[in-house]
């Protein structure tokens, strides 16, 4: 499915929380349940099908478009996804995902189609160090882009805010010089 917007990932009515926790149960809420009723899961939705499982979400192009709500990344992470694969990500979502340790992996459209062709039980391996994604059954592999700075952060658990805090003196100098 293409153009999955953040209103689908986490509808606005669930944005009233003041913490980052617990969004997973409302991930794709209106695609998951009939009339918002947890007793009535929609059978045709992937998250309701026990064949599917794991930590990687595969989606059509332009994933995460729309609202800047970081709650979308929190919901994916809280549900248990550590990576999302698509041929194209919306910019703000991509940053939000990376800032929460959810890896957005951009693959070519043909590679994405190959993944979909693998069907229900396909498994995929993502090597962050080598920046490659592999379809386990066929061994087909594609490299993906990852900003070296972000890669270092992800692999070492570094934090942008710690980095920026360490730059406060330089920022103060900048302010004086540009005033």
């Amino acid at each position, binding site marked *: 499915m293409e*153009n999955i917007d953040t209103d689908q990932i986490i509808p606005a009515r669930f*944005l009233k929380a003041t*913490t980052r926790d617990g969004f997973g149960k409302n991930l794709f809420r209106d695609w998951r349940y009939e009339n918002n009723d947890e007793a009535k899961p929609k059978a045709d939705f992937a998250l309701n099908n026990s064949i599917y499982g794991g930590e990687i979400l595969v989606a059509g192009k332009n994933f995460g478009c729309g609202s800047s709500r970081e709650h979308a990344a929190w919901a994916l992470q809280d549900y248990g996804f550590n990576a999302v694969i698509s041929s194209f990500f919306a*910019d703000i979502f991509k*940053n939000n995902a990376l800032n929460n340790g959810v890896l957005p992996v951009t693959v070519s459209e043909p590679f994405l189609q190959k993944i979909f062709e693998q069907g229900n039980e396909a498994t995929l391996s993502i090597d962050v160090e080598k920046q490659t994604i592999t379809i386990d059954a066929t061994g087909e592999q594609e490299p993906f882009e990852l900003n*070296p700075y972000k890669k270092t952060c992800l692999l070492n658990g570094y934090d942008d805010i710690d980095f*920026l805090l360490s730059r406060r003196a330089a920022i103060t100098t900048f*302010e004086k010089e540009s005033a």
Partner: protein
Amino acid sequence: MGKTLFDKIWDKHVVEKIPDGPSVLYIDKHFIHEVTSPQAFKGIEQRGVELFRPKQTVATADHNVPTINQHLPIRDELSRIQVEQLINNCSRHGVELYGLGHPYQGIVHVIGPELGITQPGMTIVCGDSHTSTHGAFGAIAFGIGTSEVEMVFASQCVLQTKPKTMRINIEGALQKGVVSKDIILYIIAKISASGATGFFVEYAGSTIRSLSMEARMTICNMSIEMGARGGMIAPDETTFQYVKGRAFAPKGAAWDKKLAEWQELYSDADAVFDAEINIDAAAIHPMITYGTNPGLGIAVNGHIPVLDDIYDEGEKKNIEKALQYMGLKSGASLIGMPVQHVFIGSCTNSRIEDLREIAELVKGRKKSDTVKVMIVPGSQQVAKQVHAEGLDRIFAEAGFQIRQAGCSACLGMNEDKIPAGEYCISTSNRNFEGRQGAGARTLLASPLTAAAAAITGVVTDIRELI
């Protein structure tokens, strides 16, 4: 080689460039609201650090507030807690808050410009994707996530990778009945909901120059709906006149100094953009969307695409799914189709000019009995002006309900929701599934086209009423 407007502002705000990484970009103004800030305040408190530059952040309550009885406690408990947290967080950290009851309260992207906080040449961020609105003043303005809100709290900077630049030139005179909302809906329909992803867009050309500031804001506002990180327009005399004299605009000698700086903010003649698109204004008709992303739009007198004529299988599937959700048919015309709701509001179209334009159309007319019409002014200031000009009487006589300022039915976070299965012509910016309420069906259009439907009860070509 010359510089683009974007480059001129960007380069002035880079504190440092991380090797093989993003830039540390200095932020002049930071707007916050109740929904995307609580976790950032919490984060900064857990780290035990103070806000670095609290005076450069301005807060308002808009997304989650009721649009009636704002003087009473908020009934919904979660909404009330969120708004109370904003009040507490702002007072604890020394952030100016224009909350409920304050004369400056309103939708964040309406109040920034109207108070003169938004100015040319600035970098502006907010935890809201429609921050692109402020780009209409020749600013770099874009939406950020909550982690980035925390970055601004911590350092008055965000880490950003420089986007590519795109220029969209629009030349010529607009047809009668065509307004800036139609221009942007036309552009998005042309290049798709992801057509500008990775880019920062500059809108240029004689058509843009002829528009008022509020009309320009509508265009920049929806830049994100084609995936662009932001949109901007070079400031000109129209911009300067709009900013001058506003509450937070520079005054006296400071004004003269700023004005001289602002007059240098344009893309040099030999500046090169990564992409360029040319549009003939005369080709634009009043627009309406039929699908579930803002790129699925047509001329109001046109037809929904015929599914069998679409070669791209992915696109065909998208449109098929959208039509199913919307209860619409391949190849159909929307003219004459009944709608049950008209929503006039949101950061896209809730400013005084929008409401004047509508008042002029509905004066002496009445809404159709089969339609509920809700007008939600963008801010307390807009509401005050509506009253001062007597527009409220025109709306009351027409049967339009006027509410209090907030985001309201644009995103269906408060109780202003559209019931499942019903159609709403909306002046807002998104027609995603369930955006205005679970199962709600949104048709995006200009304030004029929305008001026309309010009068007739059906989708109408505004050109038949003027």
